[in-house]
């Protein structure tokens, strides 16, 4: 028997992490079903975080793209006051509608915009020969294309003269053209819109969907023609486009000022900007994020308590093992580390299962509902690992301290 005597392990130096993880995995595997059930809370917590965050992320970027498509400088004026000012006498309940005349005055007095377009939108049936289709009929002003960032691909836009003469001209979206004319050239053809004859003078460039709405399933006509068609003398909204991004604020102020004067000092209309809309949707997204966080926190707390409970049981069951380890040279800190690591390992296993489950749900949802804007990202993975590691540490502290504080003699005597 001749080997060098053992050196004392330096104080404060722990045994290798790998060894601790190996022991933790062994213990976890030995209690297979029980360990798995224990992690259920963490599994559900992490899975729901993954699903909801993926969805939220997707929705956010989807909306971001959609709003970017609107153009950052778009200004929308709608009738009615949607935000109360908080004080002052209650508004008289006379709500003056917006009219084409309003947009003409605005066009003269507001220099900070490229142009205005008074639009009157309603539903209608478009038919050609024996085919027909229910679509949105958009009566638009002369400057609409420029303001809204759309293009007439074939034919030409309406002129000021078309609008003044209330001509029954129509510019059709791609979907409408395809449905009514198939391969036939629509230009110069006469269609019926809700029973009235209209001459097709153009086709718009494809624009795709926007917030779930098909921009190519529209029939555009001069706004004056919709007034006649729907028998109205007011419009749905007035669109404007600021000259530049910096001009948006000025434009809003000028529009408000001009309209208020025309409306006898009442602000019975609302001016939205694209930024307002973005802000609203961001607030909604933030609220959703806090709800997600709340749900996740609850299930992670529940999961953490579950792990703590099972770890306390485990410490109890393995009292003898702890005694033996102490007898052969484990320090309190070694026992503490062992059970802390075991708790983290159990929790991380739950986290990994949750991550896989959540990912599967997101992928399956993406297959079943392709329009669902869910997307996975790396930071969700990191978040899942971070959360479950934190839960493991927090729920492991008490059991690990209990294990470490056991007296070796008592632990060895434990039945």
């Amino acid at each position, binding site marked *: 028997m001749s080997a060098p005597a053992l050196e004392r392990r330096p104080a404060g130096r722990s045994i290798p992490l790998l060894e601790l993880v190996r022991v933790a995995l062994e213990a976890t595997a030995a209690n297979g079903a029980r360990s798995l059930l224990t992690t259920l809370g963490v599994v559900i917590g992490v899975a729901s975080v993954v699903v909801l965050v993926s969805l939220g992320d997707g929705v956010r970027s989807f909306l971001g793209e959609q709003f970017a498509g609107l153009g950052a400088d778009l200004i929308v004026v709608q009738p009615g006051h949607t935000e109360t000012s908080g004080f002052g006498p209650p508004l008289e309940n006379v709500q003056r509608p917006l009219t084409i005349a309003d947009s003409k005055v605005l066009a003269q007095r507001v220099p900070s915009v490229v142009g205005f377009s008074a639009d009157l939108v309603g539903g209608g049936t478009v038919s050609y020969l024996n085919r027909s289709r229910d679509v949105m009929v958009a009566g638009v002003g002369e400057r609409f294309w420029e303001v809204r960032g759309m293009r007439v691909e074939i034919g030409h836009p309406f002129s000021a003269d078309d609008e003044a003469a209330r001509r029954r001209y129509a510019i059709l979206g791609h979907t409408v053209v395809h449905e009514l004319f198939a391969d036939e050239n629509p230009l110069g053809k006469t269609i019926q819109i809700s029973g009235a004859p209209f001459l097709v003078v153009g086709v718009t460039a494809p624009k795709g969907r926007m917030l779930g709405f098909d921009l190519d399933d529209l029939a555009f006509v001069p706004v004056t023609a919709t007034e006649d068609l729907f028998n109205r003398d007011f419009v749905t909204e007035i669109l404007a486009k600021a000259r530049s991004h910096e001009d948006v604020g000025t434009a809003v102020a000028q529009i408000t000022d001009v309209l208020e004067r025309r409306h006898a000092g009442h602000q019975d209309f609302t001016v939205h900007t694209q930024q307002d809309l973005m802000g609203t949707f961001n607030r909604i997204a933030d609220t959703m994020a806090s709800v997600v966080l709340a749900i996740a926190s609850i299930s992670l707390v529940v999961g953490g308590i579950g792990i703590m409970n099972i770890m306390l049981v485990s410490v109890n069951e393995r009292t003898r093992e702890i005694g033996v380890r102490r007898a052969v*040279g484990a320090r309190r800190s070694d026992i503490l580390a062992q059970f802390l690591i075991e708790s983290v390992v159990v929790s991380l296993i739950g986290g990994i299962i949750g991550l896989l489950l959540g990912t599967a749900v997101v992928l399956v949802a993406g297959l079943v509902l392709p329009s669902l804007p869910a997307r996975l990202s790396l930071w969700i993975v990191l978040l899942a690992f971070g959360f479950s590691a934190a839960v493991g540490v927090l729920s492991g502290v008490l059991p690990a301290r209990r294990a470490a504080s056991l007296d070796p003699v008592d632990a060895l005597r434990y039945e």
Partner: protein
Amino acid sequence: MSAVATVIECRALSRRFRMGEGDVWALRNVDLSVESGEYLALIGPSGSGKSTLMNLLGCLDRPTEGRYLLDGAAVERLDDAELADVRNRKIGFVFQTFNLMARQTALENVALPLVYAGLSRAERRRRAGEALRRVGLEHRVDHRPDQLSGGQRQRVAVARALVTRPALILADEPTGNLDQATGREVLGLFDELHREGATIVLVTHDPKIAQHARRRIELVDGSVRADVRQPEASP
């Protein structure tokens, strides 16, 4: 021949347990010296303090009063981590109930003290393999305890006690859970270790087992009643 080293040096060692009312003195003023290479049996009736003394000698417990020098170093004032290190390097325990890790192989069980000594995996495996060979279990290296007989389990436990080359081997009723034949086998192993120079303290209440040791200490009521040396080996 050089002076023989003293492994155990106890002076007026006492251990009191605080009970609800009144204290229990499990050990009272025990003086004991054990030299390197001695094979000592600790005997006495149940409740006489044998296990209490073993726990003190094994640095699992601290005396209420008195001094204890292990391998020349005072241990009664060491803190918990230092005591763990002393157990790790200087003491090998053999328990009545084997106390092996059920999920680990014989080799891993034997290597356990070396984990806490901070040895590399390769070195642990090498030394554990050597210790298993020493107890004649080189062909059971990868068996788990439930794949071993009782006698083999206790031999694994002996290998675990040997693997750190401790100054002192402490065995509390090591044959208590074994039948006579396997018990003799394990005792034979202790005899061999003794011949090779190991210092062994063995607790038993069986006089026949105590015959294996050259020196017998009898405890009664927490005090040393007799300290008998016999010159020649038994059967």
